[in-house]
């Protein structure tokens, strides 16, 4: 593995538990996309600075798989996603709900993502 990382003629590779999802260019800035990862769903977001964030697509408040379809914004400088269902707002970096609309605090799990050669990868089973 170390040799492939340092040999310029060979493309670097990620371990098998990183799953390739799509070319990065399939994402639009500040508009989410859902991805299917086995039985689970991940919501992907490309932020204006080029950062990619991945959280659960499952909205813990409504039980529907809709987080990717919300509005991306910011609260106090932190990037956020507002669920399109009941409008709870989550911090995209930690998954914490920052506006619960009067409900109990719930959170989205956050998935590790990385990009390699213009492709986007997510770590299977990596949600936390």
């Amino acid at each position, binding site marked *: 593995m170390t040799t492939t990382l340092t040999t310029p003629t060979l493309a670097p590779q990620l371990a098998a538990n990183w799953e390739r*999802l799509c070319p990065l260019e399939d994402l*639009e800035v500040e508009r989410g996309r859902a991805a*299917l990862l086995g039985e689970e769903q991940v919501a992907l977001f490309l932020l204006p600075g080029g950062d990619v964030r991945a959280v659960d697509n499952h909205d813990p408040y409504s039980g529907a798989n809709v987080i990717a379809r919300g*509005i991306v*914004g*910011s609260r106090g400088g932190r990037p956020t996603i507002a669920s399109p269902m009941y409008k709870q707002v989550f911090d995209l970096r930690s998954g914490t709900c920052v506006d619960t609309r009067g409900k109990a605090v719930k959170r989205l799990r956050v998935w*590790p993502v990385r990009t390699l050669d213009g492709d986007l990868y997510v770590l299977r089973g990596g949600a936390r």
Partner: protein
Amino acid sequence: MSTRIVVIGAGMAAHRLVDSLVTRAEERLSVTVLGDEARRPYDRVGLTRFFDGDSAEDLALPATIFADPRVTLHEDDPATAIDRGDRTVTTASGVVHPYDHLVLATGSVAARPPVEGAELPGCFVYRTLEDVGSLQRHVQERATALDRPVRGVVVGGGLLGLEAAGALQGMDAEATVLQSSDRLMSAQLDLPAGAVLRRLIEARGIAVRTEARTTALRPGPDGAVESVVLREGDELPADLVVLTVGVRPRDELARAVGLDCEERGGVRIDEACTTSDPRVHAIGEVAAFEGQCVGLVAPGFAMAEVVCDRILGGSATFAGYDLSTKLKLSGVDVASFGDAFATTPGALDIVYTDPVAGVHKKLVLSDDAKTLLGGMLVGDASAYGALRPLVGGPLGGDPAAHLLPAGGLSAPTSELPDEAIVCSCSSVSAGAIRHAVREQGCTDAAGVTACTKAGATCGSCTVMVKSLVTGELVKLGKAVTTGLCEHVDLSRRQLFDAVHVSGLTTFSAVIERFGRGRGCDVCKPVLASILAVLGGEHVLDGENATLQDTNDHVMANLQKDGTYSVVPRMPGGEVTPEGLIVVGEVARDFGLYTKITGGQRVDMLGARLEQLPQIWQRLVDAGFESGHAYGKSLRTVKSCVGSAWCRYGVLDSTDMAVRLELRYRGLRAPHKLKLGVSGCARECAEARSKDAGIIATAQGWNLYVGGNGGATPRHAELLAEGLDDDTLIRTLDRYFMYYLRTADKLQRTAPWLEALDGGIDGLRAVILEDSLGLAADLDAAMARHVENYRDEWAETLADPAKLARFRSFVNAPTTPDPGLAHVPERGQIRPARPEERDGDSVLIAGTTLEVRR
């Protein structure tokens, strides 16, 4: 000759001292600050925010005080020696600074435990920006080299250790916290509270081991740390170790010149924060008061204020440590304040525990159960902001009410006394916050924070500050801010005018000029609506597509299970038999639930995201267009059959309804718009419950406006009577356009009309008598709308880039959401209820019918 003050150290306490000196001093003074981190002072309390993406600049404390000509900051020239006889300080570069007053604010260094291997590569402390920066780099490097999540071990289960573990997790590393005592945060929490916290931390995916004493750190073949050895004999694998086992006061300079120091570290101070040399003060973590050094920012600030006052000739005293703390770890709420361990003789405690919800709260009260002495809150610290200011004062009402979950019994709302401290970091009282609003002209919480520093440090009191500010503004009869949200201070109406006048056409340009940040779910849709009216662009064009909530984005209505409803336009409720057959066929082929809406058209529910283009292709081919049931825009024009068929009809209401619906279709508004047209006074179209209701009379059309059905029904009011067709349409044009320009966000015509200057008479003056000279402008704007109207769905189907947005999954574009489940009911489908999904009810998978494109 000015007073010369030399401050050794450039941390938070030093910053506060200098800030207070330059603010308060009237006499001449010169302040020299000697730092050693090569940085301007920054918010060390907020260090963990570094991992949330906050940069060093974000954390920097306001640098304006260093622009003051009386202040000189040497960020990177640490003091190396003090001469108490000559009263000078010498720095590393050899410069000698004479002083009249010397203030030691050297803080602490993070201690490493005295175990073998504590200095190995891969072992970090957690104290400075440099520490967290190198920790972050190390995690990234190891993650790349190992190609698996990095295993991190945090030695120390206190406040800082838990924040460090959270930070590791935020970098996708695994985290295990080792605590030598029997519970986490043992300085702040008792055993039951610590046990609840442990469960919360573990639920967050951080492993915890208590009574785990680290005896050695072992290196791997590369010389970097590889494992942690515990006294019990276990060995834990570790790719990196963070050591948070306490701090050591940096008292070396003081010791070297014979100032009295505590044996365990710290420069001894009295209640004037003066050391054994009357010319030398000590503040912050290096200062030992009554034998103790404390690593919290609030006492450091309090000491800074005392020293400032003393230097300026006052007689302030340090009242002792306030040990209140709040854990800054997302998703885990912990606070401890006052006499949390009930050490006061006769103290009583009241405990509320809910192990299922992971909540443990304890209040400590005086022996008569009237005075609040302190408390611990784990799992739900929402009461911290309200309770902590009450320490030492009467609690008011039943103490238990403060502990019960929100939504149960409401806590007593006795007003906070002026002397209650709201912000303990900056020692700001409720009275000072009220004063800032009343006398200093602050009009919002942000202004008060800038003015008083309340809420500027740890932020745990911001909710309390905001409620005090709002309460005071209301008392003063001042309007609470009408800004849209934190990004836009303008109201919708002001924003509309601003965009109109500036001619800007993109979100980025508008937010840069009239707002800040990247917007949110409140301001983005408002601006999308304004831009759609003024620009006439397709709602999915370019950047503006990201402003829309999902309904406008995919041009359908989101339902509770994440599917959508589809409503083609049927102007005036008119539909041909052929059209009705196509709708029926589409609903049948895609397995949709159908229902007649209140607006005289057909709703098809249960359509999945990826089916929408296929469904619409068939509808558009049959001559249908978008019904805008999803938009804040014209919905329907409801009508009776009118004079064409009805025995009693006076005018042709259906014909007028069709004309009006085709004229105003697609018009974006602050809220939805509904119209009704009745062919006679019997009012079968229920027109007076609409935003605009038109009723035929023998003299012509009567126009009623501002009606509403829904939760707050209101009959529309008569605006004009006996109108011919053209005058009716011109009046409606102006009415809608004036509403579009002046209403607040999500304000329907009924409340808009109630709030409008002069009410219905005022409206009549503007649109019928042209009292504001706006009429021509309003007419032109509506003409532009009519001319620019295009069917959004037909345009979308012709644009491959827009169609890409209807893929269900970026890596499986046509796979249905596997989470969807329907059950049969009365011959159609409906979403399965949770108990039906878990039980063995018959579930119907959605149709996967592929339709020729």
